[in-house]
């Protein structure tokens, strides 16, 4: 079977526009706390979620909005939730890291790695109560060092549970380059639990769709779990207002506040010999450089224009589609904001 880009692109675009609206509201101070967007991982989410059926479950991490939206959760409910309204998805109580939709068997967690046990439990219930249904775990590559996620890969393996473990690998865990914190390779690790691993380019929704397709088939038919390792780029960095991105995007505004104490500390008597200090400085500089040179600005890394390219064969249909989606979202946002908050 082949993916239908005319179905996948709308999912991705809608999610992108919705999260851009969220970003604006966050900047305006209408949404509180941290805000982790899924912008940049839409191809992975769409490739997976578009293939889910009734009764399938999803365990989400701290970037759950896109998956919920694509799964069919009312965007107005999500938006009201993020705004802290009693009319929100969770009564305005959850907040963006704790979005739950019981109807969709979808649960988020802000605890890194927790989607592993959760998907495993969902899959156990699927096996017992809804044969043929499956569970998805979404998580980042940094989470692969969290014990409970590794334990879950093993548990799903020995119980042959219908789970697909989807690792969205952007290479970063906040300011840590995951390669520096992760021994071996993630595929080998999955292999070490007896879970087959599939590597895929997570910026290409067609490729993701196809890789997921066979993993999901396997799971539905009792073949057990699969580990899907998909590369992607988070367009907004770790979260909204991410210090590292700010410091490279707005060096004049941010760097002095960072550089001044850094230099003072570097020069202060007492401490390590120069060699060590320089190594420390090199580390900070290296992370800044990696952030600067990172592939965010390279359009090829953005999955949305990438799939759009293929649909330009029918520009009329494409533009109509885009207009419709954008129009719907504008209305949804306006309606949520227009309400008198309770």
């Amino acid at each position, binding site marked *: 079977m082949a993916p239908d880009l005319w179905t996948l692109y709308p999912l991705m675009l809608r999610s992108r526009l919705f999260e851009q609206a969220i970003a604006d509201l966050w900047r305006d101070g209408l949404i509180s706390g941290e805000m982790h967007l899924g912008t940049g991982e839409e191809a992975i989410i769409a490739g997976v979620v578009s293939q889910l059926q009734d009764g399938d*479950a999803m*365990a989400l991490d701290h970037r759950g909005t896109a998956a919920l939206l694509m799964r069919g959760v009312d965007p107005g409910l999500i938006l009201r939730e993020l705004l802290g309204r009693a009319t*929100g*998805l*969770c*009564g*305005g*109580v*959850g907040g963006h890291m*704790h979005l*739950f939709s*019981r109807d969709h*068997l979808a*649960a988020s*967690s802000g*605890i890194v790695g*927790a989607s*592993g*046990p*959760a*998907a*495993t*439990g*969902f899959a*156990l*219930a*699927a096996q*017992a*109560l809804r044969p043929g249904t499956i569970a998805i775990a979404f998580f980042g590559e940094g989470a692969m060092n969290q*014990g*409970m996620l590794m*334990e*879950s890969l*093993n*548990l799903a393996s*020995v*119980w042959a549970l219908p789970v697909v473990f989807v690792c969205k690998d952007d290479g970063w865990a906040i300011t840590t380059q995951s390669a520096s914190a992760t021994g071996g390779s993630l595929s080998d690790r999955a292999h070490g639990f007896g879970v087959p691993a599939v590597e895929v380019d997570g910026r290409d929704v067609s490729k993701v769709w196809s890789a997921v397709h066979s993993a999901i088939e396997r799971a539905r038919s009792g073949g057990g779990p699969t580990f899907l390792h998909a590369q992607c780029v988070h367009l907004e960095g770790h979260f909204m207002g991410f210090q590292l991105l700010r410091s490279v995007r707005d060096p004049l505004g941010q760097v002095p506040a960072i550089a001044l104490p850094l230099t003072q500390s570097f020069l202060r008597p007492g401490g390590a010999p120069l060699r060590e200090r320089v190594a420390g400085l090199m580390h900070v500089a290296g992370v800044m450089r990696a952030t600067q040179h990172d592939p965010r600005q390279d359009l090829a890394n953005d999955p949305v224009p990438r799939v759009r390219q293929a649909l330009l064969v029918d520009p009329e249909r494409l533009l109509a589609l885009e207009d419709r989606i954008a129009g719907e979202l504008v209305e949804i946002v306006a309606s949520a904001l227009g309400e008198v908050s309770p």
Partner: protein
Amino acid sequence: MRTLSFTQAVDDALAQAMAVDSRIVVFGEDVPLLRRDLLVRFGPERVRGTPISESAFLGAGVAAAMAGLRPVVEVYMADFLGVCMDALLNHAAKVEAFSGGNWTAPVVVRAPCGGGYGDGGQHEQALWGWLAHIPGLTVLVPSTPTDAGGLMLAALQHDGPVIFLEHKLLSETYLELLGSGGRPTVQYDVPAAGTKGPVPRSWAPLPIGKAVLRRQGHDATIISVGVGVHRALEAARVLETEGILASVLDLRSVSPARRLPFRTPDTLRTRRSPVETASAPRCGACSSGRGAAQASRPMGSLPSSAAVTSVQEAST
């Protein structure tokens, strides 16, 4: 009426519930052997062994409960909850609030707790107070076989997460498995009324959060749970010989404990209400006891030739 031991009663109530509710599944390390009687009746799909991966399987239990099962997750000992507290603290206890009341995790966590058989401080903690300190968790600590069965049934019907603790000094099963191991040379200071007792032919759930008055007296009230209730009754008998009449209140549920009859005329009339539990440095019945920090001295207080007869409450 039949007579069952403490752990038999729990298993019996569990079996009764499993026979009518196919959503109930039981899993944990060694569960196929520990609950072999359930295994051969309900089959390996519903009675499962797990890897030594408490974080994964307790977390899975929470999610499975959210997705429609009624899991009973066994943790080998309450002490080991340390490795998987996240599943309780940040998930089981919070999903109801996070979801705006739309979703709950009706999981039962079953664990033996407490000590008095000399295993040491990573195996004999009570921890009920510490667990009850997490709002959103129900913490049950029965003191008799009939309460144990009735509360297990209640736990299985409860709509949120329940920690069900079996004090090892009340459980012939655990004492035999862990303490005596078939040797006739040790015996433990076990309260007879707690370890074996009459149980109903057919189990009915007991109300959660309802304490019961085990003994009536006007001079003082001793409040406790689990094996401590029996110690309190012993103490009350001793006090009586000195002319002091004490009530003994068995909380049964450490959390919630809303319906504590503290303000009833009867207990108001008593002069003092000490809390008898597995020692309580901080907050009475809410405490996890000295054992939480201090290793028990396995046989420190015994003559070298003696059997293990003394219960060190400090070790629970």
